[in-house]
């Protein structure tokens, strides 16, 4: 009985969220004068095999970005800077790997380390500013994003070569490319080989946060800074460490794209992954499995936006709005369910204790 009930409360929030998101999206479509039924028909049109591959590939990238953001979120550090961090990192890795100083996969491996290092350093700037000068990481990471974009654009002009109307770094040597995994038989498009990297990062995230002292201290700092400080956690050091770690994971974000499809950093390299990652982390509630689900939901919507646009004549803007609505609904639904559960528990405790005196205590425990 209690197991069923627990499952119900676990499932209640996401279900509520998606129902609310569906209703709100339909209302928006109505107001925009688009066809609601065509939207839902097209949205849930069975994707082709190649679309599944695209969804997985996009999820891999978004997952890494979500993880990077989640590391800091667990500590209540709002790292908005994944966008800039992955950008400088992938650019550095592309320039390094393009030189082909090392043979084959050694080149790949070192380039990935370069990306993690550069990402960590870039994030570390914000961490240091926060720890030593008390500069809000929200402000500094937003500014660092802007600086990263301009810096990379400038450097690309210095070291890049022209290809058509774009600038690009020297393409990677072919033996450093990371081949795809033929996940669906008979389908030409393949899943990024670096999908493995995302899985490993997810496992490492879970292990570090839940099975190490560092992870415990990080979560403790997130739960209550004064309490963590009182129990001997060096909060300043934790801020810097969390930013470095987050930046290192952010450095991985561009790797599947760089080694799997693009094989160079060009001025058309995908942008915005860092911002989407924030939403994905929120959607997944910073849980390694939750983030994966969030990444899949977002990738699914992105993949279907073409069908929506071409078949149902729904503007891709509506898809972006839908993503936003889903995130909002999830945040709100979890809050609603949490409160419902709180009052239910309070009532339960109050009943068993025969008075309203238990109320204060349970509130504290649950929160």
């Amino acid at each position, binding site marked *: 009985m209690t197991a069923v009930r627990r499952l119900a409360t676990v499932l209640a929030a996401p279900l509520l969220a998606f129902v609310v998101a569906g209703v*709100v999206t339909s*209302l*928006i*479509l109505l*107001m*925009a*004068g*688009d066809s609601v039924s065509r939207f839902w028909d097209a949205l849930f049109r069975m994707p082709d095999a*190649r*679309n599944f591959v*695209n969804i997985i*590939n*996009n999820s891999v990238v978004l997952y890494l970005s979500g993880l990077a953001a989640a590391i800091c979120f667990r500590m209540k550090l709002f790292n908005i800077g994944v966008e800039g961090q992955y950008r400088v990192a992938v650019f550095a890795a592309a320039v390094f790997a393009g030189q082909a100083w090392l043979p084959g996969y050694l080149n790949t491996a070192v380039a990935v380390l370069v990306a993690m290092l550069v990402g960590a350093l870039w994030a570390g700037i914000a961490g240091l500013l926060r720890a030593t000068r008390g500069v809000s990481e929200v402000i500094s990471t937003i500014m660092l994003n802007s600086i990263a*974009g*301009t810096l*990379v*654009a*400038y450097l*690309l*002009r210095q070291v890049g070569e*022209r*290809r*058509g*109307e*774009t*600038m690009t770094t020297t393409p990677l040597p072919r033996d450093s490319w990371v081949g795809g995994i033929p996940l669906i038989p008979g389908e*030409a498009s393949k899943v990024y080989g670096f999908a493995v990297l995302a899985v490993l990062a997810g496992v490492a995230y879970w292990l570090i946060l839940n099975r190490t002292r560092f992870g415990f201290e990080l979560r403790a700092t997130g739960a209550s800074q004064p309490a963590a400080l009182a129990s001997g956690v060096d909060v300043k050091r934790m801020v810097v460490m969390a930013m470095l770690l987050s930046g290192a994971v952010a450095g991985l974000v561009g790797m599947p794209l760089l080694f799997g*499809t*693009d094989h160079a950093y060009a*001025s*058309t*390299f*995908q*942008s*915005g*992954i860092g*911002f*989407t990652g924030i939403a994905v982390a929120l959607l997944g509630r910073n849980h390694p499995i939750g983030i994966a689900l969030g990444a899949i939901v977002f990738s699914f919507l*992105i*993949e279907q*936006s*073409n*069908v929506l*646009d*071409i*078949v149902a*004549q729904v*503007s*891709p*803007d*509506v*898809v*972006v*709005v839908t993503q*936003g*609505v889903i995130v*909002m609904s999830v*945040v*709100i639904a979890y*809050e609603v369910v949490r409160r419902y559960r709180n009052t239910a528990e309070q009532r339960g405790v109050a009943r068993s204790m025969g008075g309203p005196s238990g109320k204060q205590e349970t509130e504290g425990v649950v929160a």
Partner: protein
Amino acid sequence: MRRTVKITVALAAASLIATSCAQGDEGPEATQASEDICETAEGDGPQIGLAYDVGGRGDQSFNDSAYEGLKQAVEELDATCTEAEAGPGENDATREERLRTLADEGFDPIIGVGFIYSVAAQNVAKEPDYRDVNFAVVDGFAEAPNVANLVFAAQEGSFLVGAAAALKTEVGHVGFVGGVDGPLIQSFEAGFVAGVEEVDPSIQIDIKYLTQNQDEAVKGFENPPGGRAAANGMYESGADIVYHAAGKSGLGVFQAVESAGDGHWAIGVDSDQYKTVGQSQKPYILTSMLKRVDVGVQEYIKAVVEGDAPSGFVTYDLSSDGVGYSTTGGFVDDIAEQLDEYKQQIIDGGIKVPDTP
């Protein structure tokens, strides 16, 4: 505390809905039924697919020009069509998927509007399922037998409006506002500067790009306030003519010239912008550099229908009237002779216009 949370959530939700309405409304407004040939076309001719980059139609310049070509082709050939638009933050895989979806829905030819579709078109065109589909990319650099790159010698047209600016300036000071600083827009700058210097090397030229960052297309090409600020700066520092190559951001340049008042001019780009600006701005549009994307799109569709689909690079330059300058408004009539002389020299090869600054 709880109340503030509640209020914040409510406010956030309200603003989200409000902005989404605004966004959603933009669609039908920008693509009114009478304005939207693809909603009404019902011929049994070819099915044409057009794919834009972020922003799509409504820039009164590049994308609208492509649409104009599509419209003419549809009317002429009894065709049907559809338009697709990119979302923010895409990669080549997403763009490829857009082209495939169009092809799967039976559209052929498929035209990508903007060089951003080059790699995607090249990849899709080589896939076994799509080898028989005809693709074109405006400003493209794709290499596949069934892809045509419709490229424009923008520097040649820019040279002529540069010469016009040099001949018309009263103070010896002109300006250039570019969208995104990259090879594409630099060819506009290079041509403009060469044109000005051909007439009078002592003229001062202010150059400003709205962004250096090539993936900030929105900041570069969808940013009228930025265009207005850049142009304002130039007029205030003494320039009297400003040429823009900044897509929709150019609309801000026109606002700036209007508030700068008499004695100031702006030069449009891509389409004949005198025709699309408001009445109050018309007196300030000296001329426009024409990049006939419409002609390119229309001719390409016609060629495909006639079974004569081009491949590789199809260049539109002064000699084929693929680029040029507009005369609507009559403000350059007095210097038309000189401009035509320059034009002839470029066509004859007497003047070589650089495409990089």
